[in-house]
């Protein structure tokens, strides 16, 4: 008769990184939040197709703030990746510095975007373009703020010495969320800032 | 064909039978799908019921633990038979659907008559368009068309989403604010075809009916010429009094061509319409029409040529008219028309005036 269950090695107690249920949970969260942005961009595209290029307040949205801002945010993904390497190899300083720099870049992103917002000629109530622009970028900003809170908590835990090279699941979860926020921005940026250069140029 | 079943199923709004090329191919398809559906339901019901009766264990069953489970055989054959039949039936339905869609999408010949129907809460404004501006006119809730030719219908809305539906002649097409939807219909024989708004649009959605009156081309022409004439001036003293009272109390919302009653642009109207808000805003706004439904209430120039009032809610006779004017909220609560607070003599004068609007 076969064994009830055959275990040839010890089982970890409480999840390790991708083995933890928390990791799978954050993937579900990312799926649902990504869908949210998909529906927002669907609405944007619907309006754009219905109204045509005249719907845009300007045919070529200004990139002089948005482009550097985008680069900052995307670069912060690289920084958080570097921080995660620090946690994986037991280099706590590297991890802490990396998280702190990522958070600073996130804050810079928000400040620059707020500044860009204040310079717009349209408002959230002035028309459908304004409503969509501010709600899409605004909801993204809200996700960045949540990301900053999560990173702040992870920073505190790391500083308290809670992570080891084997056990640092919150590091993985938080950096995955941060990468998600950056990818969403890439898609939003492309749709709102870059795409008009292609479809509205006439 | 006279048949007791038809009597039970008779309704002015029935589409069990339809009477024009816009609706007929869909009706045939509908009956085909009904036949298919009934057959499928009958077969499955028979299979399930007979399965239970034939295969059940008879006698008392003490404990189910005494009944061993067995895999049995032949189960998959049900899929091998059932699934191909299902696919064939559905593909057939799809092919027929696409064919009917193609057939009824556009009228068989270019329509010579175009109507612009504007949905309002809770009545239908009907504008007869023409390349010659002096041949355009407007009416409400009752559409006359000549038989035997397609009529183009442009649908717009003055406020919320409504849906234009005259079941015996055409399926539904929504009237959506901010866009113009196109439909068409054709009646092959004369008759009065009842319709109703078919998209929930507020408290009196239930009373937003319409009538499509199809008549022989000569009769239609006579009606049309009558609609083009402005209102004849009233003759009797009571009717003249009534005209004055009408213009003063009703003219802000209801236009009568040839008088000072011009209706009003509802696009500038803010908030619910009450007697006081009406009076306040009436003075401030010029009278104008726009092609996207700029009026508050129906044009009454030829009110007496219609068979019903309040979008198919009441019969158009002295009793109905008086009751409606005296207290619209009692008959159609929530309607945009406020109580007019006319005195007895004033009311009867107004009704006498309105009766001259043929």
């Amino acid at each position: 008769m076969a064994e009830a269950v055959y275990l040839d090695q010890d089982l970890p107690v409480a999840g390790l990184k991708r083995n933890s249920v928390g990791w799978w949970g954050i993937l579900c969260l990312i799926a649902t939040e990504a869908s949210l942005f998909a529906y927002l961009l669907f609405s944007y595209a619907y309006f754009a197709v219905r109204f045509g290029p005249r719907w845009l307040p300007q045919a070529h949205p200004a990139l002089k703030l948005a482009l550097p801002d985008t680069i900052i945010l995307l670069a912060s993904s690289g920084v958080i990746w570097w921080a995660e390497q620090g946690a994986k190899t037991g280099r706590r300083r590297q991890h802490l510095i990396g998280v702190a720099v990522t958070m600073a870049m996130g804050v810079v992103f928000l400040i620059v975007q707020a500044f860009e917002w204040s310079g717009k000629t349209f408002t959230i109530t002035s028309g459908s373009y304004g409503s969509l622009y501010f709600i899409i970028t605004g909801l993204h900003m809200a996700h960045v703020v949540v990301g900053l809170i999560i990173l702040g908590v992870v920073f505190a835990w790391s500083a308290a010495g809670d992570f080891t090279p084997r056990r640092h699941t919150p590091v993985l979860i938080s950096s995955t969320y941060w990468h998600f926020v950056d990818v969403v921005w890439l898609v939003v940026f492309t749709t709102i800032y870059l795409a008009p250069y292609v479809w509205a140029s006439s | 064909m006279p048949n007791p079943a038809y009597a039970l199923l008779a309704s002015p709004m029935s589409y069990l039978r339809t009477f024009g090329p816009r609706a007929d191919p869909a009706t045939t398809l509908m009956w085909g799908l009904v036949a298919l559906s009934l057959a499928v339901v009958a077969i499955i019901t028979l299979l399930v019921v007979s399965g239970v009766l034939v295969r059940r264990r008879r006698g008392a069953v003490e404990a189910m633990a005494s009944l061993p489970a067995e895999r049995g055989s032949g189960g998959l054959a049900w899929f091998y038979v059932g699934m191909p039949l299902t696919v064939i039936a559905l593909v057939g339905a799809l092919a027929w659907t696409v064919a009917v869609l193609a057939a009824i999408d556009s009228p068989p010949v270019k329509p010579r008559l175009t109507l612009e129907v504007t949905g309002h809460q809770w009545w239908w404004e009907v504008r007869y368009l023409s390349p010659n501006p002096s041949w355009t006119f407007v009416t409400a809730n009752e559409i006359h068309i000549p038989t035997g030719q397609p009529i183009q219908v442009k649908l717009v809305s003055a406020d919320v989403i409504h849906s234009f539906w005259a079941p015996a002649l055409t399926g539904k097409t929504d009237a959506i604010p901010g866009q113009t939807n196109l439909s068409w219909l054709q009646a092959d024989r004369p008759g009065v075809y009842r319709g109703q708004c078919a998209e929930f649009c507020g408290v009196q959605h239930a009373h937003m009916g319409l009538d499509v009156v199809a008549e022989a081309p000569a009769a239609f022409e006579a009606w049309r010429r009558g609609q083009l004439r402005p209102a004849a001036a009233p003759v009797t003293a009571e009717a003249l009094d009534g005209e004055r009272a009408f213009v003063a109390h009703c003219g802000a919302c209801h236009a009568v061509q040839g008088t000072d009653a011009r209706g009003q642009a509802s696009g500038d109207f803010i908030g619910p319409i009450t007697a006081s808000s009406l009076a306040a805003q009436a003075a401030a706004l010029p009278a104008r029409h726009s092609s996207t439904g700029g009026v508050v209430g129906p044009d009454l120039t030829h009110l007496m040529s219609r068979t019903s009032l309040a979008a198919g809610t009441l019969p158009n006779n002295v009793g109905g008219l008086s009751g409606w004017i005296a207290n619209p909220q009692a008959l159609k609560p929530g309607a945009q028309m406020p109580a007019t607070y006319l005195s007895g003599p004033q009311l009867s004068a107004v009704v006498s005036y309105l009766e001259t609007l043929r």
Partner: protein
Amino acid sequence: MTAWEDSRRPRIVKVDGDFPAERLRKIWEGGPGLAGWISSVDHKEIGKRYIVTAFVFLILGGVEAMVMRWQLGGPDQRLLSPEQYDQLFTIHGVTMIFLYSSPILTGFSNFLWPLLFGSRDMAFPRLNALSYWIYLASGLFIYAGFVTGNGANDGWFNYVPYASKAYDPGINIDVYALGLILLGISTTVGSANFVVTFLRTRAPGMSINRVPILTWGTLSASVSNLLAVPSVSLAFFLLWLDRQFGTQFFTASQGQPLVWQHLFWMFGHPWVYAIVLPAMGMVSDALPTFCRRPLVGYTPVALATVATMALGMGVWVHHMFATGLPSLALSFFAGASLIITIPSAVAVFAWTATIWTGRPVIRTAFLFFASMIVLFVIGGVSGVMTASTPVDWQLTQTYFLVAHIHYVLIGINVFPVVGAIYYWFPKMTGRLLNEPLGYWNFWTMFIGFNLGFFPMHIVGMMGMPRRIYTYGAQMGWGPMNLVISLGALLFAIGVMLLVINIAISLKRGAIAGPNPWSAPTLEWSIPSPPPPYNFAVIPTIESRHPLWEDWLNESPARSRLTEGLLLDRGRETLATSPLDAEPNLVLEMPADSFAPFVLTCGLTGAFIAALFHIWWVVGVGLLIVIAALVDWFWPRRVHADMTASQQGAADG
């Protein structure tokens, strides 16, 4: 720094006289009194709460329907004003579609899944509690609006521009919008819980082709909800912004009213599959028990479940056929809507084949499961008719559609749910429902339902539109409506018989024992009701029908139910790999916690404040939410109720 246990090889023990059942019970049982009730994270508790709450909403929705049927039983009735009627039909739809039909299935799934999987709880027990509390809060929120005369009044799909501030001032629509966004949070977290539970917490050996069909149904619904719920939450959020702040998403002048319909139905159509697929799964799992054979075509049915859900995400435009779309779009969506019937047919043939190739035992539960096949098909064929665009142009927004939706909802959700109540009530309570009363229950419901709803097809084809508070006598709809109202009354009496049966059987039903139906799946291998820890040891699974292996004898392997991993150092269960269910983790489960309840209070407070524009209170509410989350995620590796010496004794 404390040295937490990093890994271990759990002991394999037999369940016999020496088995430490009492210690396991103490580890898993909830605390006493109100505090214990609020802080419970036990899936069985939460499942029963969902079922009871959803059932209460079913009764409320039924009362709303009966009032409407009184109004419509004859022409020109004046029992209700038009505004009252509009609020009634709206709250009836909202109640049935959001507050009953999904939560009832969530409740059954919550109670059953760990028992079906051989596990001790769901993957995220506190998240489970949170999803229930938020559901309850959103239901109370929405009903608070209704009972104060501020109920939504634009139908459950709430089309704009009628739902915009200009045409619907007052807070009715705001209550609905915020209430639904709140409910959406419950649905989303619950769905994440099901997805991760399905993939990670099945017993060893329960490979993915051995799981019960109910779990395929709820899994499909949960994946769909993760992807689709944001659409409706977004739609209501944008509408709320339009109404409070003057944004221009849906206004007629600047916005696009049809965007509302797209966003709503991109959620709404997948939702209606999400509220039937788990119920179909319950039929697929329970009907075979009474037929004394495994389900015919497990693999086609499992695949068809997933396929139906996937296709269901691509047919939403069939709710918009009359909005003036181009012919190409109409043809495509008509085609997709017809094709989706194909996987549904798979289930019908599977069930019918199971009856014909089995030896059915007639019990009340079986009657509900067998009859739903017929009701399913009636609802399905009326759906095929409405999928055909030109026919839909006549049928849509008439009582034909009302007939269709009730045949699919009552036929494919309510009837299976009642069958499931008869089937699993013994497991939940330890007592059987009364069988003779059950037969009366079934026949009154079945006859009443068909008498009440079949004529709706006919009166719909006689042109009766839906959502009208009255109709004239000259329309000829009166006689048919009277029949409908009387049938509905009979159906309501049938539902009352169920309530009576439950009430008397809770106290005086026959004692059930662990497996009254001699059924094959794991939940029947443990006592009724189950102990707090579900399984004394984690079983090892060798087939789809662990308790029928001796009878079916299809291989020499046998599932091991009385010997397996112990896992008693605190609240622990086993996590396994997604496809083959190989053990790969000892999963630490949380102790009872107040955080979900506190979070819900903060969140609901924030929503109530948002309704009334008291923004600082919104802030306070969100701070409470954050505080609850901090407590929730605070790193603690707790072995509940175990001192160091107990831990030492356990290892010995």
